[in-house]
């Protein structure tokens, strides 16, 4: 029934950072790559003059269409999952560049801890420190091994940053200098310094100056215009795949992108991937695209969904803890920890800003915090951000203010330029009972089962939040706020999915029994299939895009290696008991 097409070297599902990076790297080396993108084509010219909050932020202009597919959600295995129907409940980036277009641009590196969380926890505090039922795992690669790839990603993106004295070690400085601080960021840096921390500007993909990357792609200087997160950039000043790796791939002549092409299955035979099955969304016709190597590089949700639908790898079973596909749904209710301050005597220019304009410090991040005397593991990257307020989205009022009516209007107008918040970007760990599987009741437009998310908040999350709420409160008081409100403690997952925060499902590790891919993003059970993206994180890494970019560069290297010489597994597995 499906129309069979000519075989290519590599077929890549997705055009965000995860798919765009291997597409650029492999086409540069001469491989023929076909990319399949479920969304529309768009480029920078679509974003010129598109400063429309209702259209982009409230109506999710460049996000996925839930009428095609969505997810179902529930807290625990005992609950009945229900579908997240609207885009305010479930969204991820759509169209060329995917979520990497609407991202805010914060470009942190994963910390040493993030990559080897289990080993480091045991080494520092002993195995008893790991809470019962937490699936705490290493990724099978150390920070030092991944460092060159971080560097490579930052050079492609032109990351603007300031040397972080408490951050992970770097082989080279940031390609461009830090962004300029707004007044709230200066206040934050002063307060943090007073408290003994070492604040710097947030490493940013909103660039401080015009930049040409090693592939010859130009990114412009940020104008601090505020239409950033949820938008494509008006000025081509946000590093994204549309500005960098996609044009790089196109220039080679070896890249063919097919948009509105929805991949439904990875096809395989005798343990090897043979290609993918996709639907041309304009005609409804099905195609089979054969390839030597298949790269699945969508978002967490679609990667996991595609693996389960294609019946590759052993699905995770929460009862036994066995199996790998769908394991560790994370990032859905990141504990964070934060505080909000309302200022009576100060008014800030909060309508200005950029997605990743902000101040940060690493003194309490997962590498630097001492967890000996606290009842949780991991730390947080502190941040203040001035993204630029939207009149629809930003209506800050102190707690206990009515949600509507005279008082609401009065207070929201009064405080709109007088509210700042400080928060901690936290890891979100994998737990035995938090996972993805196929929903037994609800189906997508092709009548395939939807992906079901089971996720609940734990004591670790609450204790983490309690601790970091207090730290944030101290900073906000030091900043001089008149009213300081700590964030509320996480009670349960809000049953929403979005902002590119969800991770897990096809996780990376050194043992095929507990992980789905190795550190080249190669599937243990299918050596010519690579699954790249936030799906590979065994726990959600705070501000994960930088790490995903680095892992995508490493995957590209692995695919080249696989195609050019050693076909076979690129990494020796730690145990030899491969799952069937």
């Amino acid at each position, binding site marked *: 029934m499906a129309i069979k097409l000519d075989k290519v070297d590599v077929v890549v599902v997705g055009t965000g950072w995860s798919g765009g990076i291997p597409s650029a790297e492999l086409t540069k080396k001469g491989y023929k790559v076909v990319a399949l993108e479920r969304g529309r084509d768009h480029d920078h010219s679509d974003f010129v003059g598109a400063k429309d909050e209702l259209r982009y932020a409230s109506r999710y202009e460049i996000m996925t269409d839930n009428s095609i597919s969505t997810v179902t959600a529930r807290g625990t295995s005992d609950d009945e999952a229900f579908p997240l*129907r609207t885009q305010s409940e479930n969204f991820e980036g759509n169209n060329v560049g995917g979520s990497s277009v609407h991202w805010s641009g914060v470009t942190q590196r994963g910390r040493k801890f993030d990559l080897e969380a289990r080993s480091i926890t045991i080494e520092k505090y002993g195995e008893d420190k790991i809470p019962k039922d937490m699936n705490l795992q290493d990724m099978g690669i150390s920070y030092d091994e991944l460092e060159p790839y971080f560097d490579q990603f930052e050079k492609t993106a032109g990351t603007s940053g300031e040397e972080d004295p408490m951050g992970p070690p770097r082989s080279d400085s940031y390609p461009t200098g830090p962004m300029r601080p707004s007044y709230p960021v200066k206040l934050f840096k002063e307060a943090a310094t007073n408290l003994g921390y070492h604040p710097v500007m947030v490493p940013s993909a909103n660039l401080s100056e015009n930049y040409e990357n090693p592939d010859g792609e130009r990114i412009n200087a*940020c104008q601090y215009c505020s239409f950033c997160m949820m938008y494509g950039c008006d000025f081509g000043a946000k590093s994204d795949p549309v500005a960098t790796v996609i044009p790089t791939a196109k220039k080679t002549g070896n890249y063919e992108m097919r948009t509105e092409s929805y991949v439904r299955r990875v096809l395989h035979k005798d343990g090897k991937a043979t290609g993918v099955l996709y639907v041309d969304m304009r005609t409804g016709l099905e195609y089979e695209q054969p390839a030597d190597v298949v790269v699945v590089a969508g978002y967490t949700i679609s990667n996991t969904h595609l693996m389960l639908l294609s019946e590759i790898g052993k699905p995770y079973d929460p009862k036994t803890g066995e199996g790998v596909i769908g394991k560790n749904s994370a990032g859905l209710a990141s504990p964070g920890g934060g505080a909000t301050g309302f200022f009576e005597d100060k008014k800030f220019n909060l309508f200005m800003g950029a997605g990743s304009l902000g101040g940060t410090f690493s003194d309490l991040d997962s590498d630097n915090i001492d967890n000996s005397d606290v009842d949780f593991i991991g730390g947080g990257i502190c941040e203040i951000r001035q993204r630029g307020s939207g009149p629809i989205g930003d209506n800050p009022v102190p707690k206990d203010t009515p949600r509507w009516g005279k008082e609401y209007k009065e207070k929201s107008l009064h405080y709109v330029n007088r509210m700042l918040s400080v928060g901690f970007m936290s890891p979100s760990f994998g737990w035995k009972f938090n996972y993805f599987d196929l929903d037994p009741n609800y189906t997508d437009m092709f009548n395939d089962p939807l992906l079901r998310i089971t996720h609940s908040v734990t004591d670790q999350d609450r204790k983490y939040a309690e601790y970091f709420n207090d730290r944030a409160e101290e900073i906000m008081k030091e900043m001089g706020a008149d009213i300081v409100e700590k964030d509320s403690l996480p009670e349960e997952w*809000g049953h929403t999915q979005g902002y590119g925060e969800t991770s897990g499902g096809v996780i990376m590790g050194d043992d095929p029994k507990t992980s789905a891919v190795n550190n080249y993003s190669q599937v243990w059970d299918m050596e010519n299939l690579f699954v790249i993206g936030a799906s590979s994180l065994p726990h959600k890494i705070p501000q994960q895009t930088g790490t995903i970019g680095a892992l995508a560069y490493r995957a590209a290297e692995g695919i080249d290696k696989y195609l050019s010489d050693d076909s076979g597994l690129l990494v020796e597995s730690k145990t030899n008991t491969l799952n069937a």
Partner: protein
Amino acid sequence: MSDKKTQDKKNENNQPEQESRRRFLKNSGLVTGGIVGGSLLGSFIDNPFTKDKTTSDKDEKSKKAFTETRMFFTRFEDFYVLEAAVERIYPEDDNGPGAIELGVPYFIDKQLAGPYGSNKFDYMKGPVQEVDVASSYQTLMSRGEVFIEGIRKLNAKSLKDHDEKFHELEGEQQDELLAAMEAGEIDLRGVTGTTFFNLLRQMTIEGAYADPLYGGNKNMMGWKMKEHPGIRPGYSDLIEEEEFQVIEQMSLRDYQA
């Protein structure tokens, strides 16, 4: 300010004008037990005698734009209830205009007539479950249908409790009914009252502050109240300023021009 206030008071809820129109129809006997035909109503609205008086600047200003006309709501009465409800959610006060003067009812009308109102990008397969997550949209009804159902049940509750239509109640009475809707205490068919109220509240805020191209935020008055410039090419020259910057508003019409 006082001049403006008088003007605003006069236009409050657009009611005096509508009230008089309805009262006239009622008194004329045209509606008692009968049906007012479209052409009759139309000719009445166009009746030059209802315009009369001096064509002052004020009249010119209060004259509706061609786009301030219903494209979604079919019944006058539904629209009156909508107007009264959004004005309670975002009332006129000393800061400036309320939802009606900002054009929120027409904003909502236009949104409901488009893809958002018909949930084009949402998952609309059954079955629907009862869930205790208030933010969840669990119904197969489109937003347009939810509005019609919600507004009519709100008005029916008003008639039952007070023997008056919702838009004829005192403000506090309207607030009580809206709070009951928000709490899910008014039964709707196929959707919860809370879902309807959340949507009503959210779209009221959107209508107050979205770019004027959508029919709300009239004359950028929502942005002016917030001291938000709306749209500027960028703030590269001002980003480090410590003083609060009062910047004149610009909309997409001027930005894209």
